[in-house]
Every structure is written in structure tokens, then in C-alpha cells.
């Protein structure tokens, strides 16, 4: 696996083998755009995680605190946060209400940061659920084939064929009312776990199918035959032989899945079936901002831009990851 790269120091007598991971990492590092966007995502995440600090020290208010009849001093004059006609103040260069207020007198900047936390949190956790489920289902279906595959594939088909938004809204509305109790576990209607579970479920076929396809192909390879001959049980084969080979696919899909999850969460929240009021998420903020898009377009534009930037960074970075992990990528680029 020695690759003649310029990264080697002066040629030595021994030829050092470099693992595919090293090579991938080297390729990734060369892709500056991908690294750049990866850093952007981290910055956005840090920004959102800093929400409590901003709320405490700069804005002096929480994300859900209403200040409809409060007054603040702007340019030396005492101004209503929300006018008697119901119009909130706009953005301005100040600590409190940097991006202005919404119709309930809440600080939009604070909500933006907390909303980001919620949206990213949901995106990541749902991706974890999707990945775990997809890997398990894909492995079982690909390895055992036969009727196991038939049943699992049909289940995936059902989820796949279900119009996503309708499923999301239906479940979101149902569960929001009564919450969920599985066994002894109680989830209240307003919990974030409900959108997380729904979004996690929806994208399972998206990842499980490619995993299944790869497992089907890998299964025919000699090293699996060898492992079977050695007497290894199916579970060990799946974990120690097959899993490492699909890891790179899974990593890429997982990254892109986070992006898709955030988009789906914003759509569900926009429709009222995702994050429940009064909690903020970028999707609910767009929905709220729609009410006043004429007089305060920034309330719609800003949360949307945040979604676009975050999702874009994940997509670009995931793309870079894919190119880095796929050995044929370099060949492609060289014509």
C-alpha cells in the first residue's frame, strides 16, 4: 500500500506502508474547500452552543421570555419593544435585541442561537438513530438474504413509499398530544425525542439500501468464505469482517444524513409538526417570521440562511469525505 507521495521525507531504504486511513486523511487535507466548510460547520455549532452565554451576559433574557410591554432605551429614547400596534423593534447594533424582537417581544438573536442548538441536536441524534438502524437492517438483509431479506426489504419499502411529510405530520400531531409510552419509558408530547425519532425513522431506507447492496457484494468475496471456513459465527463475521469494509460508506452517508435531517426538521417545524412552541428551532422561526414578512423580512431570511449555511457546510464536507475515502477519486480528477 505504499503510495509514492510528495509527503514522504527523503527516500529511505524501507518502503513504509500507509494505511488507507492515512491516505484518505491526506487527500482530505488537500481539499481545502471541504476542510473550510467543515470548519464553518464547527464554528456554527460552537456559536449555537454559546447560546446560554449570550443570553446571560449580552442579551439578559432567555429565548422564551416575553417582553411585550417592556421598554428599552434606543438612542437615548425609551422605546416600546413591541409597539401598541403590535410591531416589534427591528435589528440594531446593540447587545439586547441585536436582531430585533419578535411579536412576543422575545430576543431574536437569542432564539436564533437556541434554535440552532435544537436544530443541530435533532439533526445529529436522528442521524445516529438512522445510522444504527440502517447498518443493522442492511447487514442482516445483505448477509442472510432469502426471506429475512424479503421481509426487511418490504419494511424498508413501506417506509420509503410513505409520503415523508404526511407521515411526519401525522406522527408529529398524534404524538404531540399524548406523548409516547414504550414499556416503562415515558416521552412527553413536547419532548424533542419525538421529532428525533420520526426523522430518524424516515431516512433509514435511504441508508439501509446502499449498505445492503455493499454487503451483498462483499459477501461473495473470498475473505468471508475464509472466515466461514474458520468457523466464525455470523455475528463475528458481520462485526469484524464486514463492518470495517462499509465504515467509509457509512461515515459519508451519516454526514450527509445530518444535513438532510436538518432540512426535514425545518420543514416539519414549519408545518407545526416538529419542534413544539414555545421552543425555538430554525424551522419554527421561519414559520413565525412568515407572519410579518412584509414589515420584517429579516425574521424569515436570517434563520433560513443559517439552515442553508449549516446544511451546505455538511454537504460540502461530506462530499470531500466521499472523495477522500474513495480511492478512485484521484484517478477521476486526473482524467
Amino acid at each position: 500500500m505504499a503510495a509514492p507521495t510528495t509527503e514522504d521525507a527523503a527516500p529511505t531504504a524501507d518502503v513504509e506502508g500507509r494505511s488507507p486511513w492515512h491516505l484518505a486523511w491526506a487527500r482530505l487535507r488537500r481539499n481545502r474547500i471541504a476542510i473550510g466548510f467543515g470548519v464553518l460547520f464547527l464554528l456554527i455549532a460552537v456559536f449555537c452552543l454559546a447560546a446560554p452565554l449570550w443570553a446571560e451576559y449580552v442579551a439578559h433574557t432567555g429565548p422564551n421570555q416575553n417582553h411585550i410591554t417592556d421598554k428599552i432605551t434606543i438612542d437615548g429614547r425609551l422605546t416600546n419593544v413591541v409597539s401598541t400596534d403590535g410591531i416589534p423593534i427591528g435589528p440594531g447594533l446593540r447587545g439586547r435585541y441585536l436582531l430585533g424582537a419578535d411579536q412576543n417581544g422575545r430576543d431574536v438573536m437569542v432564539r436564533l442561537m437556541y434554535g440552532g442548538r435544537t436544530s443541530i441536536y435533532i439533526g445529529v441524534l436522528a442521524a445516529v438513530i438512522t445510522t444504527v438502524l440502517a447498518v443493522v437492517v442492511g447487514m442482516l438483509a445483505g448477509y442472510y438474504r432469502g426471506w429475512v431479506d424479503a421481509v426487511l426489504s418490504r419494511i424498508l419499502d413501506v417506509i420509503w413509499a410513505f409520503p415523508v411529510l404526511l407521515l411526519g405530520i401525522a406522527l408529529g400531531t398524534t404524538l404531540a398530544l399524548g406523548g409516547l409510552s414504550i414499556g416503562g419509558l415515558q416521552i412527553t408530547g413536547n419532548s424533542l425525542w419525538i421529532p428525533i425519532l420520526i426523522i430518524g425513522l424516515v431516512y433509514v431506507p435511504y441508508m439501509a439500501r446502499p449498505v445492503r447492496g455493499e454487503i451483498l457484494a462483499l459477501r461473495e468475496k473470498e475473505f468471508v468464505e475464509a472466515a466461514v471456513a474458520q468457523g466464525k459465527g455470523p455475528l463475528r463475521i458481520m462485526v469484524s469482517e464486514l463492518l470495517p469494509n462499509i465504515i467509509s460508506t457509512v461515515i459519508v452517508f451519516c454526514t450527509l444524513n445530518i444535513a438532510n435531517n436538518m432540512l426535514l426538521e425545518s420543514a416539519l417545524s414549519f408545518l407545526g409538526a416538529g419542534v413544539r412552541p414555545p421552543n425555538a428551532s430554525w424551522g419554527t422561526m421561519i414559520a413565525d417570521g412568515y407572519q410579518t414578512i412584509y414589515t420584517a423580512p429579516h425574521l424569515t431570511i436570517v434563520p433560513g440562511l443559517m439552515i442553508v449555511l449549516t446544511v451546505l457546510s455538511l454537504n460540502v464536507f461530506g462530499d470531500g469525505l466521499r472523495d477522500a475515502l474513495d480511492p478512485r477519486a484521484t484517478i477521476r480528477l486526473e482524467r
Partner: protein
Amino acid sequence: MRRLRRIVTILAATAVTGAGVAGCGGTKSITGAGGGAKGGEVNVTMTSFPDYVDPQLSYTVEGWEVLWNVYTPLLTYRHQKGDAGVDVVPGLAKDMPQVSEDGKTYKLTLRPNMKYSDGTPIKASDFTYAIKRLFKANSGGSVFYEGIVGAKDFAEGKSDTITGITTDDNTGDITIALERPNGTFNNILGLMFAAPVPPTTPLDKESTNNPPPASGPFVITRVDAPNTLTMERNPQFNTVKDAGATEVADAQVDKILVSQNKNNSAQVTGVQQNTIDFMSDPPDADRLPEVKAKFSDRFRMEDSINTYYFWMNTQKAPFNDLKVRQAINYAIDPEALNRVFGGRLHPTQQILPPGMPGYDEYKLYPGPDMEKAKQLLAEANPADKDITVWTDDEPDRKRIGEYYHDLLNQLGFNAELKVIAGDVYFTTIGNTSTPDLDTGFTDWFQDFPHPDDFFRPLLNGENILPTNNSNFSQVKIPANDATMDKLVEQQLTDDVRKQYAELDKSYMEQAVWAPYGNEQFTTFLSDRMNFDKSYRHLLFSQDYTSFALK
């Protein structure tokens, strides 16, 4: 009734031109004396299409607005704005009913020689048919008429006829027997639920797609639910006028096209640019200041009879404690809620709204006073601080819910907000088996201008229904119930009004509700409309017979 605006939770985006509205070329005909051009076409938009285009079934504000001038009941309300419009006057009947001494028998006579819009004669037995339809088509309004002798048996199928109503088609006599005297019965006779319809109308099904022929100044010529409907002058309306029905107003335009448009902002722009002549709903909060400022020559605020309040479940902790309820009354800030409504909510602390007979202003809980509220809460020291706050998902109601939720948290509770889809909100909180019904949003718009319409469904202990409950606070005060029953049997004299006012105060001393506002509505017309003539009726919203082109 509640203002069930069935607005989809999904919001439409902004618009500049009025969406989906046909052009409105109006023809102005020249008149002689008598002021104002008569004729022309008008187009009207509303955010929610009428629930039913059927006089016996429609029970929303939009439905009543459209149908009031299409179907005339035996009695009707004066076509005037303000308090004058609250009076019941003869419609298709010759005079007000003759009520027997014991208050249980009502006698009316139908005017002779009147015809429906399709030429068929209007008969006395058509009134009975209409009441029968109420029960057989399962109308929500049927409950008002259950007091008629034999109605319940008919409803349950035990009888083929309603024994309490006898009519004579030759003389036009109609006699109605009630089980108990009812001081609201004249008001109820004035609602479209009791408007006669010919027996060709389906008895047990709604007739939205093919409405029955009209007995009012307009007839509905075309329905494409839930998008548009067309109203035109009723060619047979002169038969009603000639028979002496002077209180039923005549049309001043030839045609009205009613369209649904889910986008309030688009409607505002449409009226501003004169592509829409009238919008039923008030402009949204963010457009209102601009309309008020720039279009004051064709915009005005209008009164309406409604109360917005937070209900508090008096049967469960923590709201079973009087001090907790009083604390809430001290804490809420009607001005904040007014701003959420764009400045259209008048503060109140009464059960009855201004304009309702029996209204009297008093202030038991001057405020907002957070200190007093916290002090009361400290005294009450409720053990159960976990409460669920309910609201529906219409944008302004959602904001009200969020305000209330934050307020309760500031008071030291651990509140959880539940936002429920508009169409199922009232059935959800109206189902007493729904868990965690602690407190939440509601409103009530009058069904008819009599205080009993507020007290009975909302506060009477007998009316805590297992489903479709409206007494959300689950109030049960037997002494007040007895007063209510006594007062309803009497006619509405000044003394009775005073007693209703005291009933109001007695309930608020128990702080059964936390009322905060009466919503105002608006009239906003295009340039071509005669602004002075058009008005909003206190019960039936905009009076379409008041539409006239300049």
C-alpha cells in the same frame, strides 16, 4: 359560538395582487332619486369559506355573514349597526309572536303570497320542515330548539312529527309549544336555523352544493366549495317586500362573488389596489397600522360581541383554589395581549362583553399587578405546580398561548404548552376525559344577543358535558345556576338586565375565568364602494345589503 376560523396551519406566502380572484368589472347603473347607484358587481374575500351553505347547518361567522341575507326566518334582527341591530323584529311573520300567559305557547302568522327565489310559494309548514331538518341533519344548532314539545322524540326517531309545532298553510298560522317558558326564544326564532325552506330540500343531508331557494334579498346561484360562491339579486324578493316585511333590507348590488383566500396579506393588498372590494377578516397585525394610516377614508374599526378569556379548571389543583385564580387575574396584562392582536383587543374583566344586554363595567382585579399576584400565590402555596396550558395553532392564538405560558412560568409554575390544531382544539379541551386540562385559551362569540347565551353553555353546572363541553372551567355554582334558570324564563326588562350584571360580578368574584379582551373587527372597502352605507352588524357581521357602489 366560537370563532372557528379553519385556517390551515401552513401559511401562504406574500402576494401583491389578489390571488385567484376574477376580475370585477362593475356596471354602474344610473338611478333617479333615492341616493346612490344601484347595481353592479362586488367581490368579497374571506380566509375561511362558510362551513355549510345551508341555513340549518351553518354555524360559523363566515357562514352567517353570507346566509343572513339569503334566508329570512320568521323573525329577524334589525338591519342596523350597534345596539339597534340587537332588536328582534318580524321577518317572514306578520308580527312579533303572541306569547301565552305561562310563556309556553308562541303564536305567529306567516305573511301571505310570498315566494321563494324559484317561484314556489312559502308555506307555514316549511317552518316545521326547517326545524325537522335541524334534527335529522344533525345540526349543531338543534340544541336551541330541543325545548319545543316533541322535538326530542322526533330527533330520536320515536315520532314522525314534532308534536309541538302546528301550522295551517291556508291561514299561515304557526303555533309553537315549549316545554318551559324561555325568554330567549324570540332571539332563537331570528336565527337562520329556523329559516323556512321548501320540502324539496334534503331532510337529512347538507345542501352546500345545491342550496335551497332563497327567501331573502339575495339568492345563491353557484357554489364551488370551498373556493367560491356567487350571490345574485333574488328575483322573487319583491313578494316578500310587498307582503309587508319592511324590516328585511333590500339588495343594492346585483351580484356578489365570495371567494376564499387563505392569504390575509394578499387580501389587504387586493383591497388597497381595488381588485377586491371587501375583506371579511380584519387585516393582520403587521398590515394594520399601514391600513389605518393610509386608508382611513375607507377603513374603520367595528365593535363585535365576544369575550376572550383563559379558562381555569376549577375542579382540579391548582386552579381549584380561589386565590390562585385571583392571582392569575391580577397577573395577566390585557395591554400585552392587545398588542399581540395588533391593537384590536379592548381590555375587559367581565364575562359579558360591551353591547350585550346586562353588561356593566367594574374592576375587581386592578392590574396588571405581578406583586399582588405573587403574594396571593404565596398565600395559596399550591402543592401542584405542574400545569398544562392549551391553545390552538392559529398564529395569534399561538402567540397568546406563548405569552400565557411564559407568564405562568414567571409566577413560579412549571408550565407546559400544548398547541393543538385549530379544527380539533375545541373538541380536545371539550372532552373532559382529556388528561391535564388545567388552563388555556378560548373565546366566545354570541349566538344571539341575550346573556343566557353566555352564561348557560359556558358557566352552568348542568352543562359540564363529557364531550363537546363548553364549560371549560367546569364551573358548578348551584346558586348561580338557579338564578340563571329563573332569569331565562323572563323577558329582558331593565331589572332582568341588572340581575344578569350581578350574576356576572358574582362569577368574577369567584374568578372562574381570566377574561382579558373583546376583539374589534374592521370594515375595509375598496374605492368603488360607498363607505358610509356599509356597516357591520353585531350578530351577522358585514351586512351584504349595505354594499353599494358609489
